[in-house]
Each structure stands twice: as structure tokens, then as C-alpha cells.
């Protein structure tokens, strides 16, 4: 009796936990995203910190990257805002690849958000007047999934279109190199 009860308890705890995870994966984001200014101010594009004896504060994390819904929205927006025209499906073209481990301006969601909003000098447009902030966060989350930096469960599985590469979910994580504007936090 007692052991049965214990088992039930354990099971329901598991169930609840599973539900919770599933919830955060599927839920739309209703909370406010981190304010853009705060993000942009805390993003660094150099790993060199003269006189500093500690690492800089990491940019606010992106809750969008825990949501499969947000990531799949990000994937759609990546096509709609023509990121795909310059970066292809991550392999690059006019712009650099986004599915590899080589980052010029940083791989954290905050860095990518900043890249999208401010642009970058060698041909990356500034989408500030085009893309609302919450969408930029969704796109940033999706961009991270391209190099396997998001948990499998939230990364897109099967492509809707002609298959030109392994899906994001089956892309092995590429440990980011390049600048370390903030300590990399990997799942």
C-alpha cells in the first residue's frame, strides 16, 4: 500500500515535471522580452577587457530559446525577412554561415539580437526599423538552433521545404569559437 502510494507520488511528480517542460516548450511567450537597450548595452564584441579582473556580466538570457513555438516562429521569420537570401539555410552566401562554430560577433542570443537590430559593418543590414523586438528574439533563438545550440526538443525537426541540409534538431552542437563577448553558457 505504502509502496504503491510512493510509486504513484513519484509517477505523478514525473508527470508534472514532464508537463511543465512540455508547457514551456509549447507555450507562446506572454512575458516581456528583455529590453533592447539593456541587451545592446551588455553585449560585447570583443573578448579583451583591459583592466578587468572579472568577466563582464552576461547579456540577459533569451527565454524564447526554451520555447519550440518561438523557435518555429523564428524559423518562419528567418525566411520572411530574407535572412535566408544572404545566409541560405545556415551555410551562408553573401553573409557568413550561421550553422558552424565560427562567430564574428558572438553566438549568445543577446549578441545575435544586437546583430539583427544594429546590423554589422560588412553588409549585415540593420533591421531596427523593420523587425519588432520580440520577433528579433525569436529569430535569434532560431539562429542558435542552426548550430545545434538549443535543446533538441525545441529545435525544428523536419523542414517544410526541399531538404537541403540536416534539420536543426539533428545538427550536432557546434561549440562556438570566435569572440567571447560573454561567457558562453551551454546546455
Amino acid at each position, binding site marked *: 500500500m505504502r509502496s504503491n502510494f510512493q510509486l504513484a507520488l513519484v509517477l505523478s511528480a514525473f508527470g508534472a515535471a514532464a508537463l511543465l517542460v512540455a508547457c514551456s516548450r509549447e507555450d507562446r511567450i506572454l512575458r516581456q522580452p528583455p529590453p533592447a537597450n539593456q541587451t545592446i548595452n551588455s553585449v560585447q564584441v570583443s573578448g579583451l577587457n583591459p583592466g578587468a579582473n572579472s568577466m563582464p556580466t552576461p547579456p540577459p538570457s533569451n527565454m524564447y530559446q526554451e520555447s519550440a513555438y518561438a523557435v518555429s516562429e523564428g524559423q518562419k521569420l528567418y*525566411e520572411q525577412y*530574407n535572412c535566408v537570401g544572404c545566409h*541560405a539555410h545556415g*551555410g551562408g552566401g*553573401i553573409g557568413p*554561415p550561421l*550553422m558552424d562554430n565560427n562567430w564574428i560577433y558572438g553566438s549568445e542570443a543577446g549578441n545575435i539580437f544586437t546583430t539583427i537590430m544594429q546590423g554589422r559593418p*560588412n553588409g549585415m*543590414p540593420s533591421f531596427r526599423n523593420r523587425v519588432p523586438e520580440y520577433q528579433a528574439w525569436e529569430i535569434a533563438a532560431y539562429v542558435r538552433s542552426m548550430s545545434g545550440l538549443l535543446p533538441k526538443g525545441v529545435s525544428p525537426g523536419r523542414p517544410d521545404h526541399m531538404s*537541403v541540409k540536416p534539420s536543426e534538431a539533428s545538427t550536432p552542437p557546434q561549440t562556438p569559437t570566435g569572440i567571447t563577448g560573454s561567457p558562453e553558457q551551454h546546455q
Partner: protein
Amino acid sequence: MTTPTKCWLRNLFLPALFLIFFAAYTEVPHAAAQDAMLQPQTEKNYQPHSYQGKVEPDDGQWTRPAKDYASTRYSSLDQINTNNVKNLKLAFTFSTGMTRGHEAAPLIVNNTMYIVTPFPNSLYALDLTKPGAPMKWVYQPLPTPASQGVACCDVVNRGASYDDGKIFYNTLDDQTVAVDANTGKQVWKTQIGDINKGESITMAPIVAKGKVLVGNSGGEFGIRGWLTALDEKTGKIAWRAYSAGPDKDVLIGPKFKPFYPQDRGQDLGVKTWPPDAWKIGGAGVWGWISYDPQLNLIYYGTANPGPWDSEARPGDNKFSSGIFARDADTGEAIWFYQYSPHDLYDYDGVNENILLDLPIKGQTRKVLIHPDRNGYVYVLDRTTGEVLSANPFAPITTSRGVDLKTGLLQYVTEKQPMVGKVVRNLCPTAPGAKDWQPSAFSPRTGLVYIPHNNLCMDEEDVTANYIAGTPYVGANVRMYDAPGGYGGAFTAWDPIEGKVVWSNPDHFPVWSGALATAGDVVFYGTLDGWFKAVDAHNGSLLWQFKTGSGIIGQPVSYKGPDGKQYIAILSGVGGWAGAIVAGGLDPRDESAALGFAAVMKDLPKYTTKGGMLYVFALP
């Protein structure tokens, strides 16, 4: 003289090639094309038709991108010949210090060599009278770095033109500059386009009748294509001819007499598009311009209509993917012919036009020879725009030929790309049977030497979203080698008979220009870095040199101050084909570089980037 290996290669290649043409009509599976053993179409019986027409007198310099107005890329220097070319040695080198694709032809004027680099488009002058050809000066226009974002296919520049003491060329951020050829000082600079509309400039201008002729790039960015004439003295815009829009913008007036009825009518540049689509319909002018001083006509092609997703632009999309003849003084259109009406495959019409006078059916006709992306070598009457012949030079599955009565390309309905459907085995691919890489013509052999691709692709269209300054494409593409299992070839073509005389296959697309010389040696380079000299008569390899990087430049020949013949080439991989190396692309995504990365995934094993000039001479 052919070595046994060469013969073997060619014997395999020629029958394969002919079978491919055959297969193109019947859709035989690839394997069949490879193992069938036809008798080689033997060039043994081939009788060269040496050219009876005139070529521009050669002063041993190289002052225009294509050598002469007829665009022959032929040097009448003959010190280097089929016997002694094996002794060719490096004379000097010069590093451009740049790592993107080097597509320009060096110019040689008054014992000075001029080199234009890819972005940031520096212009170097080298003193040929001094040992090692030291630098005289460098001119740096410093185009905005943001312009790199609107260059569809690497930040290349195809070179400059010299006239009246000045060097003229274009910057990626849409400026035309005139630089004093002696001092390197800027004479004028004119902004003629806008990167925020997706415009860039990569083409080499020509100067005719005191005007610098320049066209824009950006068919993948929803630009509105044009050709602009600037006064060579002041840089003021004299006229601009749009490729689409109302007749007055296209400079279509009473003089316009196209040969075929489908090109006649009012405002076809508006009516053959959905409302307003012509305003963002592409049709840039980023290729080559030829000039006939007798007829006083300039000839140039228009690029693909945009977006690639053709369902977004029902209609013939005039005047894209075709050729204009215009009055050199006023820019007025004289005739137009459309190679690929309502283009389905990114078949720009911008490739070179070689102006020749050839005997056609017993009559000498003023013609132009144009190897198009759609896979046919066209021979057009350049006074009227009539198609005299159009024969395939590479595998074709997307069309069944060109109807010589109507001038219409015969598309294959099943091969039409569509939104949401993958259509397979489309040959030629988006970069075409041949892209920008210019051919050469030798009057001694009467042959056209064509560097080209041998590729097929799968395509699925998607609905494109127009946002000014970003790509407007709407297609997922994946390319692969065409039958034969190689990516490109260097082919000698008889323009009168309309057939291949010999062809050297290459692992990769041959993305360099060609140079023909009076020594009967023809030069070209390969994407893996070999600079090759072959026999103009039979293609056999006579000499080769491994440069530091893949070659996509245009070889030129000139007479040095010491009276010797020199051969010069820029090495430095890149361009659309070489973007995988120049841009460090990731080929796990087969759609990278608009689908080119898929077929180039091996290239990084063969070559690395880096721009360097190589100049060769006999000891």
C-alpha cells in the same frame, strides 16, 4: 600533337557530350550517357575556317577589358607559340593583399599595368619599365563596407577601361570613377546607384564615342536594371536606358525595329509584367558591352528577371534575359531579342557578344556570337537581331531548342519550377551552361574558345518577400555535376558549323576568361589554381603553372618595353562558384551560395584564397 592521356580524355568526353545533347531531348538516365561508346566525333577531319573578316589593329597593349571593341580577347602577338610555350617562366608577381574573388583583366597602357581588385576596389599601377614591375601608385576609392551585403555572388570586380589618359572603373557601392592614368589622381567620381535599392556594380565599363558605359547588378535584389552613359570628360550622366518600364525609360522610340513580332508593341516593358513588378524586376546590366564603330551600335545583354520564383511575374518580362542594340550616341534602342522570355531558371542574357563578319549560307553577314546561359551558342545578325543559328554547347533539359522562324526558346513544360514542388534534373543550372566567364576568338583558327559549366540542379520555388536592400529570390536550389561527372569544360566551338571541335573537361566549372593568341596558344585557368596553355587547334595541354589560389581572372597578353610578349593573369578564388572558399561557406547546407555550394563542396580541399598577379614570359 596530343599526348595519349589527352586523347583518351577527349575520346571519352566528346561522345559523352554528343550523347548528352541527345539525352537532353529524350531524358535518358545519366548512366546511359556515360557508358555508351559512340564513335568520337573526330576533329581529325576538321578543317579550320580561318577568319576572312577584319580584326582591330593590335598595338601590343591591352586597353579594354575584352581587348577590342569586337570583344575577341585575341592578341596578335606570336612570340609565344605551340613549340616554345613549354619554356614559359614566371617574370614577376604582385600580391593584391585581398582574399575575395579576382575576376578582372589587367590593363596594359604606356608600359604601365593597371589592376582593379575586388572590394574595396583598389586600383594599382605597376611600372613595367623597371625590374620586377614595382608599384607606381595606388588609388583607393574606399567604397562603403555595407555594399558587400548587396553583392549576390562575391564582391568581385571585372576590370577597367582606358581612354584618353584616364582609367575608368566602378566601385561595388555604385560609383564610377575616372583616374588619371599617369598620376593616380581622381579626375571625377559619380554616384550612379544606391545600395539601399539593392544595386551594386561589378561590371567592367567600356568607353565608346566619349561615353563611359556602365550597368548595374542586383537581379537577386529586386533592382530595376539600367545601362548608364557618362561623359568621359566630366562624369555627368548623358543618358540612362532602363531594361524595363515605359518605352521612354527604356529609350524605345521610332528607331526601334526588333526582328520578331513578340518584341514589338508599346510599353512592353510594363505590359509583360504584373502591375508594378517591373519596378523591382531585376534585368540588370552586369555583363559585357561590345561596340561596332561602323554601325555605331553598342550591344549588351540584360540579366534575369526577379524574383527567381517565376510564378510571381507572369508574362514575358521584357526586356530581361535578352540583348539590346543601341545607338552609341543617344542610347536609343535599335533592336532587342529575348533569349529566355519569362525566364524560369536565372538565365541572364549578359554573356559576351563577339562581333564578327562570317560567311553564313554563302553570304557574309555581320553577326555576333553569344554563348548564353541557357546552353545555346547564338549567332545573331547584328544589324537586325535575327537569329541565324542557336546550337547547344552543354547538356540541356530545360528546353528543346530555339525555333529559328519565331526566335522562341522551346521550353519543356514539365521542367518548370513551381512553388512548393521540387523539380529535378534541370540543366543548365542557375549560373547557366556558362556564366560571366568570357570566351575568346582566334581569327587564325576561326574558333571561339568557351570556358563553361557542366551542371544540373533541382529547384523548388518559394514565395519571395520584397524588402528593399535584401535578396529577392524565392527559390531553393541544389546543383550537381551534369552527365560525365565533371563540373566544367573548356570548349573550342566552330561558330559557322555550330558545333564543338574539341573540349577539355575539368573537375570544376571553368570560371576564368579565355585568351587566344596568334602563336596558336590559348590560355585559361581552373578553379583549383592551374593556369593552362593549350593548342588552339586541338586543345592538347602544352604548359601549365600552379598558382597560389583558384583562377577566375581573365588572362591578357601584351608586348613589354623590352619587346617581349608577356601573359598576365590574376589568381584569387571566389566568384559565385568559388564563394565556398572565399566566403568560408558551410556545404552541409546544400543551398549555400544559392545552391552552388552543393557541387563545390570539394573545392576547399583544392585551393585557398588570396589574390596575386602572375606574369609570364619566355626566358
